[in-house]
């Protein structure tokens, strides 16, 4: 699959935003590390919402006809893309109610209820983002429950690293935030490792024989019938060399998981301070971006069978 920059940016930014907001609610509820002040919570919440809005706006850049984008909310009952849009939009007012109830000292039940609902909606939205890809039977590398699991884990890992950065800047006791990040980042790393292991051999897939129905003998492509590329070759023809993909997987693990983990140790030992927390957050997000690029680059759409691939 052709890795579209706007979609990569959208999923990474909105995933981090939704993750940050839900974890901010947990940090607020349990007053982790002494608890953020009202202003700090509101600022953090607004940054999270900013990431989400920024992501949603950038996702409209990959639309060829954005003037009809408002219609995307209309097929909630069948389309995961529509569901994602609806959930993301419902998230906004709920998040604002939560932030307002923090700012204006609303009763605790309102603050906690709105915060909880916002956190759940954030989770559902990221899940829907993953399901956009996971529901496609045409791409074996995506058609697995590991995909929404990965999207959630990567989003929450980025969010937890951003929250840790906030805690360090706010001068809170960083230990509970470090523990939270360590846990979520390692879960994300394990899920990603399972995914990479799984796509090496994703089981039975369509072949050029089932695609053409000519199952009685070997089949090979003689001619694609077009002189230059087509929409299909541009959208689905992208192929990544096995070696390069292997190298990028190492980059994902080193930059996305190992480096933030090391920085957590630094922050814990109070050696690097803010710089270490900044590096952890940026490395985590950069790793997620590489991971997302690779997620698209490694996906093989079955239409490639008609262009000569023997299996997908």
């Amino acid at each position, binding site marked *: *699959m052709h890795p579209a920059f706007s979609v990569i940016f959208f999923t990474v930014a909105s995933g981090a935003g939704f993750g940050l907001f839900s974890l901010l609610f947990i940090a607020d509820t349990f007053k982790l590390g002494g608890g953020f002040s009202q202003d700090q919570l509101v600022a953090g919440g607004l940054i999270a919402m900013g990431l989400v809005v920024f992501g949603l706006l950038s996702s409209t850049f*990959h*639309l*060829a*006809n*954005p*003037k*009809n*984008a408002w*219609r*995307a*909310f*209309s*097929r909630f009952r*069948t*389309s*995961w*893309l*529509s569901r994602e*849009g609806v959930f993301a939009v419902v998230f906004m007012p709920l998040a604002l109610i939560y932030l307002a109830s923090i700012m204006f000292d609303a009763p605790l039940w309102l603050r906690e209820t709105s915060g909880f609902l916002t956190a759940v909606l954030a989770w559902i939205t990221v899940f829907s983002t993953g399901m*956009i890809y996971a*529901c*496609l*039977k*045409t*791409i074996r590398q995506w058609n697995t429950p590991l995909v929404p699991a990965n999207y959630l884990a990567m989003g929450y890992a980025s969010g937890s690293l951003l929250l840790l950065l906030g805690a360090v800047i706010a001068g809170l006791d960083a230990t509970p935030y470090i523990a939270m990040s360590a846990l979520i980042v390692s879960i994300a790393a394990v899920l990603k490792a399972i995914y990479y292991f799984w796509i090496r051999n994703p089981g*039975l897939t*369509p072949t050029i024989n*089932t*695609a*053409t*129905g*000519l199952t*009685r*003998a*070997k*089949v*090979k*492509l*003689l*001619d*694609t*019938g*077009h*002189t*230059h*590329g*087509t*929409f*299909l070759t541009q*959208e*689905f023809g992208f192929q990544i060399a096995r070696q390069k993909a292997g190298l990028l997987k190492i980059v994902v693990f080193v930059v996305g998981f190992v480096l933030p983990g090391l920085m957590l140790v630094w922050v814990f030992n109070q050696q690097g301070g803010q710089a270490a927390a900044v590096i952890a957050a940026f490395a985590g997000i950069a790793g997620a971006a590489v991971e997302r690029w690779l997620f698209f680059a490694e996906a093989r*759409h*079955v*239409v490639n*069978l*008609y*262009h000569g691939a023997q299996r997908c």
Partner: protein
Amino acid sequence: MRLGLVIDLDVCVGCHACAIACKEWNASGTIGPLSDYQPYGAEPSGVWFNRIRHYEMDEYPNNKTVNFPMSCMHCEDADCVTVCPTGASYKRAEDGIVLIDQTKCMGCNYCSWACPYGARELDRSSGTMKKCTLCVDRIYDEKLPVEERQPSCVLTCPAHARMFGDFDDPDSAVSRTVRERGGFPLMPELNYNPTNTYLPPRRKPVIEIEAKPKGGLKESIKQFANKLVRR
């Protein structure tokens, strides 16, 4: 009704006339135009509803070229319709034709990801997704003579490799042909239940190939001399 095409892989000669006729009709059809990019330039490309690919089956001396026209299969379980977030893609209840409402499409490409057959192509100039309409603007046109109320690809095919009809009617020509010739759907394992059906190439006897002369140089010279004498 369940309208669709039967394509006879035994007969298709790979002339691309169906694709040209399709382009010609649909360029001014309900969801036309079908934009071309650099049609006379170095990298010609554009929107087509019907594409013909060419394959080789088996190996020498049993090999056979199979010409393979493909357009929208008008699937019974069309995922392209269910994934569409705007409601632009729809499948007609009355005849099963899958269409795209050009006024609703936002050009997100998601339906093309869901289609295993590569039937949907984005038109970069209109920013909307386009696909085979089964010539919905022809087959119901009462101003045309009855025999011309068929998709233009079917009408134009010089080898009669294409048939159009109702698959729900067990006595229709398409249903009967599919039964008699053992027609098959493409990629049935994905469970899209495509309507369009393909007829397999017939098995033909292997043509005997003239045996090469045995022996070395001496034998060759002898044969050459014999030929000269005979003349």
